[in-house]
């Protein structure tokens, strides 16, 4: 009988400790990835140096467009300029970080943003419907909250360089 009582007591104490540990772990997980104020964070990207210029990337990857695009929302002038000039900016059909065809579809998770391209994994590349906001956002599913997209680059040019670096990484892996 003493053995049973001992086991029950140990089980209750042990489970209490396990539950406390798990609760702490969950709290840590949440604080590790979501910012306190729910503001977007700068997404981590490739650590390769910015060895290329955005204008070279646009020249190499851009497919010129015949007509200007009609957008019902206000966007940052640099974003608008590239969307007007090019059908898409990307190395091939599989990776097009800027593509004006996405603009037809509004971003369903957050109406303050508009999709302007797709990242390598398929995540939406977004621009804020605000002429003063030069940041480019990424609606990551796996590590982020699509309702609060994270900033992938502070400017369009920086974004293009990151896209270039990602593509270089991809080509290296293919070899």
């Amino acid at each position, binding site marked *: *009988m003493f*053995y*049973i009582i001992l*086991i*029950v007591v*140990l*089980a*209750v104490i*042990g*489970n209490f400790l*396990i*539950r406390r540990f*798990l609760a702490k*772990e*969950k709290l*840590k*997980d*949440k604080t*590790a*990835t*979501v910012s306190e104020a729910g503001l977007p964070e700068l*997404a*981590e*990207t*490739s*650590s390769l140096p910015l060895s290329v210029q955005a204008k070279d990337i646009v020249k190499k990857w851009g497919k010129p467009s015949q007509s200007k695009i009609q957008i019902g929302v206000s966007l940052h002038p640099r974003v608008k300029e590239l969307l007007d000039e090019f059908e898409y900016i990307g190395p*091939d*059909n*599989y*990776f097009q970080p800027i593509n004006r065809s996405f603009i037809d579809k509004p971003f*369903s998770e957050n109406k303050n943003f508009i999709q302007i391209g*797709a990242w*390598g*994994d*398929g*995540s*939406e590349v977004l621009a804020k419907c605000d002429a003063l906001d030069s940041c480019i956002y990424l609606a990551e*599913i*796996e*590590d*982020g*909250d*699509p309702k609060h997209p994270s900033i992938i680059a502070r400017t369009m040019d920086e974004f293009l360089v990151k896209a270039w670096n*990602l*593509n*270089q*990484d*991809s*080509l*290296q*892996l*293919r070899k």
Partner: protein
Amino acid sequence: MVADRQSRVTFLAADLLSSAQPSPTSSQKTRVGGFRRHASGRLSRRGRGRSMFTPGSRTCAYKTTSGLGKWPNKDPMGEMGGINLYCFALNCPVYGIDPLGLSFLDDAANFSAGVGDNLTFGLTRVGRKGLNWMFSDGYEDPGVDPTSGSYVAGEVTEVTVEIAVTAGGASLRHVARLTVRESLEGGARTTFRRANSLSGGFIHHINPIKGHPGGAIAKYPLPFKWAAQGAWNMKWVPSRAAHQAEHAKMLALEAVDDLRESTLLVRQAANQIGLYLDGNVCDWSVDVSASVKGVESDGGGLLAPIPETPTPMTTIDASATYEGSGEGD
């Protein structure tokens, strides 16, 4: 059973005689199965080598003073352990051993019962009892000995594995928190697209590298390059909704694992309490006696044979006197 043993012994004796003794009509050198036999009755070296199952052959047996070969490793219990004397070694006494004199199958059964009972609050034991009640006799678990070393080993193994899995998950989450996804992946998902000609849609990691929608770290993430870059871990999904559904599946599995993790010790305790109650406090055995068409069953479970024509109940005359010697016949 006795008849079986006698016939078996008779068979063995006849077999020994026919194979080990030369036929009186045979010449000094004759052939058995194509091999030469000496006058002594022993087969030639070549014959001994080929004829494995001939009693007297020394291929797998040792030679006794009587000149007859005997198989090694016979069950020391003799026929008390069953008519097959080599069953304990799975009929292979040359390779199979049982140094502790225990039955391998019994040990395995007890071990797996210990693992199962500990995992399921002892519900598997209840299931075994139920099966025994249905197909045999009595609401009990005669096939498993909870006091045996293998049963306890099963319990200990189960708890140890669970603790190791829990600790492993915590370690993986710790590593995942310190890891940057992009540094693991590089352009792996773009590479996967190109290799499989996939445009549009999303590339989903089947085993999460870091986390789930909303930013929560996965319960068992794989924050390593081999998982982040391996094509085996990638899957194309057509839409954001499909991608989220994949993660929802994973989260449901994690919820089940949460239940496992948080009831680890309670399950262990529940099993121990069940065993204690079985042995000490309550008699759980159910005496089921059914009366079918006037025939009372002996409580032998569902498979007890029911006679087609009901036998009338015997009336016992209490006034009758028994005239016997008192020694049962």
